[in-house]
């Protein structure tokens, strides 16, 4: 079956993510041989960490890679449990499962779809090593309550900030709220580094050292250049062996390139303006879609800045169409590619084969039957917003 061609979708149509600034930045790097993990990566790491309010940043190849490193750096392994949300991209849970630890799904708050702290608390056991939370759709989780659960038990908090660069919780940016923050610069995200990329942030020097090691094969060198760990020359003097390398453990190569980082630096400078535009579009959607019976619109918690990576609506029972019929009518009939973020992770074949089964998180399942994401990105123009909201009103048989 061939797919309809959409006029409006979530991805990178309607103009490029990049402008002349990015093109110039790329050319500059090309002229300096475009190294992997060179000075641009270092500059990007420092700038991004400072933006988040953290002392340490570590650029990686993707958000997925960042999550794997974060979970490993937290010391998670077989026999441990990590609590996470079922409403997320599968990478979040995979990062846990790949270590051999058990993925424990906690239920969600029906208002924000973020982890419900009370459900998290009910899942804590003596095996719980970390909570891997997701600031879903760009809205920060209730961090005070998650902290209140984690801190007394020595449980690490890892923030999956893939949707939420620049989002703020009680005056502090995501990525600085827990022990480790992980960002994604995939092409659909609020900022991007040539289609893929990621960043890890932390304020803990020991965690940073572990992350740094794992990103580059746990390699030690006498000239580490910010890429590797250095040797302790007091214990292991270099002598003439400037070329000598050693490897502390089994690590990975998840290093970002300088070309990506150069683009990342430019995109970071644009991030606040783009987030502001997303917030503006969200307000416009809310204004135009209010009052449609059965159509629930997003709610933003007090004390947070929601950066609307995704604008989600809920089709409640009084809405005239089911989620499936509405989505298909929008896509095939109106050429607007709406989406569903996300199917509960444990419903996938991969997680059912690990022993998970439907019914683990009833609120998540109930919300999944209702939520639909509308296209949102900074390049959506007034015509697009008008076309989209008008069509939804028409479908709902509401008055324009």
């Amino acid at each position: 079956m061939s797919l309809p061609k959409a006029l409006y979708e979530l991805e990178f149509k309607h103009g490029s993510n990049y402008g002349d600034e990015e093109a110039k930045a790329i050319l500059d790097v090309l002229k300096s041989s475009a190294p992997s993990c060179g000075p641009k990566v270092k500059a990007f790491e420092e700038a991004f960490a400072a933006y988040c309010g953290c002392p340490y940043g570590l650029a990686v190849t993707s958000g997925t890679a960042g999550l794997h490193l974060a979970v490993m750096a937290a010391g998670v392994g077989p026999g441990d449990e990590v609590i996470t949300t079922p409403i997320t991209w599968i990478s979040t849970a995979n990062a846990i499962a790949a270590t051999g630890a058990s993925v424990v799904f906690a239920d969600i708050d029906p208002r924000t779809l973020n982890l419900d702290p009370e459900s998290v608390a009910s899942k804590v056991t003596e095996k719980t090593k970390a909570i891997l939370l997701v600031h879903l759709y760009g809205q920060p989780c209730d961090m005070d309550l998650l902290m209140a659960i984690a801190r007394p038990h020595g449980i690490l908090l890892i923030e999956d900030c893939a949707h939420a660069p620049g989002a703020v919780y009680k005056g502090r940016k995501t990525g600085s709220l827990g022990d480790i923050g992980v960002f994604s610069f995939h092409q659909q995200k609020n900022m991007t580094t040539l289609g893929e990329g990621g960043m890890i942030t932390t304020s803990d020097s020991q965690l940073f050292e572990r992350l740094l090691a794992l990103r580059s094969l746990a390699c030690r060198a006498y000239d580490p250049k910010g890429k590797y760990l250095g040797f302790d020359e007091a214990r292991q003097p270099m002598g003439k062996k400037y070329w000598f390398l050693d490897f502390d453990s089994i690590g990975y190569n998840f290093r970002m390139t300088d070309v990506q980082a150069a683009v990342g630096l430019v995109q970071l400078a644009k991030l606040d303006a783009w987030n502001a535009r997303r917030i503006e579009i969200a307000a416009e959607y809310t204004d135009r879609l209010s009052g449609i019976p059965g159509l629930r619109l997003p709610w933003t918690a007090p004390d947070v800045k929601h950066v609307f990576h995704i604008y989600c609506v809920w089709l409640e029972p009084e809405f005239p169409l089911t989620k499936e019929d509405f989505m298909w009518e929008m896509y095939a009939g109106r050429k607007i590619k709406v989406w569903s973020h996300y199917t509960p992770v444990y419903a996938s074949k991969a997680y059912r084969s690990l022993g998970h089964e439907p019914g683990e998180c009833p609120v998540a399942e109930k919300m999944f039957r209702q939520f639909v994401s509308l296209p949102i990105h900074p390049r959506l123009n007034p015509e697009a917003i008008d076309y989209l909201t008008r069509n939804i009103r028409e479908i709902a048989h509401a008055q324009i």
Partner: protein
Amino acid sequence: MDKKPVLLIIGGRGFLGEHLAKEAASSWDFWVAGRWMDSARKKSVTLDVTDAQSVQRTFVRARPDVVVLLAAISDIDRCEREPDLAWDVNVKGALNVAEACARTGSRLIFTSSAAVFDGKKHGYREDDSPNPLSVYGRTKLEAEFRLAAALPSAVIVRSALVLGLSSRKDTNAVLNRWVESWHAGNPVPASTVEYRNPVDVRTLAKVILALAQHPEASGIYHVGASDAKSRCEIACQAATALGYPASWVLPQAASPPDRAPRGLDHFLVAERLQKIFKVSIGDTHEVVRRSLRELTESSLRAGIQARLELRG
């Protein structure tokens, strides 16, 4: 340093009791008594109000200056199903406490209800004729009569709907029930025809303590907002203020058949209280807003703590 007066809260494990204890902490030396108290806790007494000796023993231990009697079967439908129990606790129990107060010279504050009225007119004053429709209302009215006879100085506080949150899940706090339901993604039914002028639990606790400290206060006092709204309107305001959709309140024009009869318009005029204490309770909107302030981190933290404790 002056010794603080001793306050005995009977029925202290309910949600009003919990808030009253919190409010009383700074200026009262208080004891909490109830059927299932944690006896290991200091100044916490297990007491069965239907047992006069148990009441007497508690008075001997606590030696209260003021007693606030909250203990009651306040589930209106349960009272209808179990009228004997309702009578024992709500009437005989109240009388046991009043008699103990009379013997020890303690003042008594008793919480009663708008259910003593039939709700057929708009606006009830303290001296309006009661006409209860339910077993619960009849027990409260009977208790009021007997208390006034046994202890003329007794203070009776009537309210139509108390809004607030309890840190415990097994109380009759309606907001807890609503929030739990919404939290699970479920709607709640609420009447569009039953009108109430609510009071938030903290204000009610403050009013009770103010009456306790006022030596000349006696008789009946109504407490409630300056206007009445339907339960449905109140629930909708609470839902939207907390970020849940108003559609999660299901309007009910008729009462389910298994429900005890309730008056339609329970608007208690609170002028007497306001004249004496110059307190402004505000309108229903303000009362709902105040009651939701309780749903802050502290009550959520308490919920989380309970979950963690359950996990051991």
